[in-house]
């Protein structure tokens, strides 16, 4: 925390010292690039952290600029005019949030479509700004916008811009290190996993976009009094594209990168433009070189300085996480004549099965029987064509991973699904926070200290979990399986869905995992549904076995009963069916 404060103060001091050192023209020029930097800061946040590339941030700058312009024109010399700054930013952020939440709702990993939507919006906004002359002044723009009251000349406004930029950088810096920052990176890394932990991924991504747009709004609000003129070109694609270039060149994964990108590219363009007619070739080549050789942008040159970031050390004292309400019974699920088809292929053909009193239910069956699909349709990853699914007595009409997760269902996938780019500690934290955080907790650094008895036990059993700062991508396959299992367990679910939990594990790892599962089953009121092929495991774990075949229920019973069942034997050995 100390590092954070020191760094923020240093940045602020540096910004404030520029005018006395470089002169009034530089204050004016840099004022404009700081405004670009503010908007680029947002682009870096939403792109570098949350993985959403916004191609239309110029639109938000323009909206805020026009709003502020009208505010200044209306309230000119009164101090109320200053309210335009927060009002414009907040308004734009709210608009952006509503829009993004709507677009992201219920859809996973859209790829470029959201980016193209923002592009289309900004192109449309340009035409609107051009045509709606009564409000925007049309092509020639809104002119004679008064400056902010009490600020005279370039220098005063520079200080305001510099201070706001410094504060914004500090704020974004903080956010990136706060739990919300981890959640953003998690969403960029593995949306599906995040949803299965019960998080509302649409809201999380929308929050990133809204924050970025709020910054763009602040930039626009400062633009109007700085330029005294607002023209439609702010909304066109050219400016939005420039912002992406600033973030890319500077380094989108860092806080300072986009700001530095804006200043460096902006100043270079301005200098070269007036001296060399060929500056555009230079910029193009420079840009290509950065993309090819410096994917982390210019900030990779400053990598050594990153040691001074305020990393959480592993020796931070642990505190107890708030408990989750413990419900005495485990979850039950019932399938009634469930049908699933994808294209021409029937996956589940009227599956009817229900859980009973058993704690561990193993689902077996030959390949293609529909075992994983059963879990998929229950958690909303496959659409249901017919039948009912009832979880804990309540019909689940349109299951969604997060909703099902919040009912107390945790799932571990066949191929381990963790957050590879996050550290082990961050992976565990994200799982631990699920369902326990309230309100503004996402901003509290204290959440990183949370732990629970279950988590401590798992840490004791599996030592590698204690190397918390290692990225999850560095783990072996087996370790990832165990990490994912741990993450599922510490959410203290009432139903645990395991899909071949020991696949790819060594003999020792398998034994340790089985041990852990059995211990967890004792600690929590847990029902476990395991899909398995390994009969040895089934024998050791299962209270009851269900056999599926060609998408239908075939047989059930204890392990011995099922093994003696002639139909089951026929299916496995390859009988006439």
């Amino acid at each position, binding site marked *: 925390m100390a590092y954070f404060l020191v760094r923020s103060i240093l940045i602020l001091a540096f910004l404030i010292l520029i005018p006395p050192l470089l002169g009034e023209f530089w204050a004016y020029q840099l004022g404009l690039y700081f405004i670009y930097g503010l908007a680029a800061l947002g682009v870096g946040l939403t792109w570098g952290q949350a993985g959403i*590339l916004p191609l239309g941030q110029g639109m938000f700058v323009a909206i805020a600029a026009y709003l502020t312009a009208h505010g200044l024109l209306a309230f000119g010399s009164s101090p109320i005019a200053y309210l335009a700054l927060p009002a414009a930013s907040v308004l734009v952020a709210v608009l952006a949030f509503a829009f993004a939440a*709507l*677009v992201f709702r219920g*859809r996973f990993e*859209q*790829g*470029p*479509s*959201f980016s*193209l*939507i923002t*592009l*289309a*919006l900004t*192109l*449309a906004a340009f*035409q*609107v700004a051009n*045509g709606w002359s009564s409000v925007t002044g049309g092509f020639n723009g809104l002119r004679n916008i008064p400056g902010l009251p009490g600020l005279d000349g370039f220098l005063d406004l520079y200080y305001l811009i510099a201070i706001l930029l410094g504060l914004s950088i500090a704020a974004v810096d903080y956010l990136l290190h706060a739990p919300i920052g981890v959640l953003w990176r998690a969403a960029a890394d593995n949306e599906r996993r995040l949803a299965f932990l019960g998080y509302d991924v649409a809201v999380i991504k929308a929050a990133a976009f809204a924050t970025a747009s709020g910054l763009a709004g602040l930039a626009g609000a400062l633009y109007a009094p700085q330029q005294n003129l607002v023209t439609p070109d702010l909304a066109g*694609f050219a400016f939005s*594209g420039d912002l*992406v*270039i600033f973030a*890319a060149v500077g380094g989108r994964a860092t806080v300072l990168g986009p700001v530095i990108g804006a200043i460096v590219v902006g100043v270079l363009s301005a200098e070269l433009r007036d001296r060399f007619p*060929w500056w*555009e*070739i230079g*910029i*193009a*080549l420079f*840009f*290509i070189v950065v*993309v*090819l050789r410096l*994917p982390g942008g210019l900030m990779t040159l400053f990598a050594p300085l990153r040691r001074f970031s305020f990393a959480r050390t592993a020796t931070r004292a642990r505190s107890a996480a708030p408990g989750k309400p413990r419900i005495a019974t485990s979850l039950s699920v019932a399938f009634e004549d469930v049908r699933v088809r994808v*294209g021409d292929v029937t996956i589940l053909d009227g599956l009817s099965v229900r859980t009973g009193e058993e704690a561990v239910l193993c689902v077996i069956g030959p390949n293609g029987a529909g075992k994983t699909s059963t879990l998929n349709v229950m958690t909303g990853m496959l659409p249901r064509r017919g039948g009912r699914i009832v979880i804990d007595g309540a019909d689940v009409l349109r299951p969604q991973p997060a909703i099902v997760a919040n009912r107390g269902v945790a799932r571990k996938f066949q191929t381990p699904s963790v957050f590879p780019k996050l550290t082990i500690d961050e992976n565990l934290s994200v799982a631990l926070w699920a369902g326990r955080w309230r309100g503004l907790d996402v901003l509290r650094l204290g959440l990183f200290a949370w732990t629970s008895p279950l988590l401590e036990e798992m840490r004791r059993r599996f030592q590698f979990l204690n190397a918390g700062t290692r990225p999850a991508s560095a783990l072996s396959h087996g370790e990832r399986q165990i990490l994912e299992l741990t993450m599922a367990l510490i959410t203290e679910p009432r139903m645990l869905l395991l899909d071949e939990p020991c696949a790819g594990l060594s003999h020792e790892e398998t034994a340790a995992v089985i041990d852990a599962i059995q211990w967890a089953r004792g600690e929590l009121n847990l029902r476990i549904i395991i899909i398995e092929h390994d009969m040895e495991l089934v024998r050791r774990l299962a209270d009851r076995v269900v056999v599926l075949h060609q998408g239908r229920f075939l047989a059930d019973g204890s392990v011995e009963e099922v093994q003696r069942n002639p139909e089951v034997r026929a299916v496995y050995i390859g009988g006439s069916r």
Partner: protein
Amino acid sequence: MEALLFTQGLNVIYEALILAILVLGLAVVMGLLNVLNIAHGEFIMIGAYAAYVVQRAGLPYLLAIPAAALVCGAIGLVVERCLIRPLHYEPFETLLATWGLGLLLRKCVELAFGRGYRSVEIPIRGSLSLFGESYPAYRLALMAVAALVLASLFIWYRRAPTGARIRAMVGNPVLAEAVGIRTRELARNTFITGTAFAGVAGVMVAPLTPVEPFMGLTFIVNSFFALVVGGMGTVAGLFAGATIIGGLQSVLSAAVSPTSAYIAMLLISILFLWQRPRGLFPRP
């Protein structure tokens, strides 16, 4: 009034087909290889300049087609080797790199030819009379060629072995490599084909649009939206996208006003992108 409607009807079909031809190169590169080639418009522009050069040299216009294919294919070869492959065909990285490439190509053409407009004469003069109404012959010829090219491509992609290999590579590159399909060469050749298509499209539209270094920018927006709305990786998607983006804009432009049509096209694209993020007919 019927005459006007008839002409406008032909206009709609014309705009849809022309857009399909213009988008074809991008459909190959973006739809099959996931490379977001934002310099696609510049390849069209280079094709148009190739047509200008061929015509100025007094050569028959048809020669411009292989000329453009050659030039754009060659540039595509260099680009694939130096930009696309080092970035591992990753969509957002290639978007950025091809952005820089577009800037570079525009500037190079500007230095070679200057910024002014070049006029490419229409190779087929005059009009044809259809149902009593005359319509420019060259445009009709283009429509016929476009329809032919798209139909043949559709059949070829479905039937020919190379088409199957490409579909295999696109669907499961690891497995394709494992069964002996040389994915690196195939990907490179597919990319070059995409840029060559763009060049040929440039030859086709050169007599109809102003030819200047920045002309590529006017094509790229509609191309991207047509692809994303229609669906990437299928010929049906290409058709659907071109019809919706190109055809609809034409209809609205005639019915309401060009500015409203443009904004409407953008809003409809947004709607499609929202509800069908993978497009209408995406690659399965």
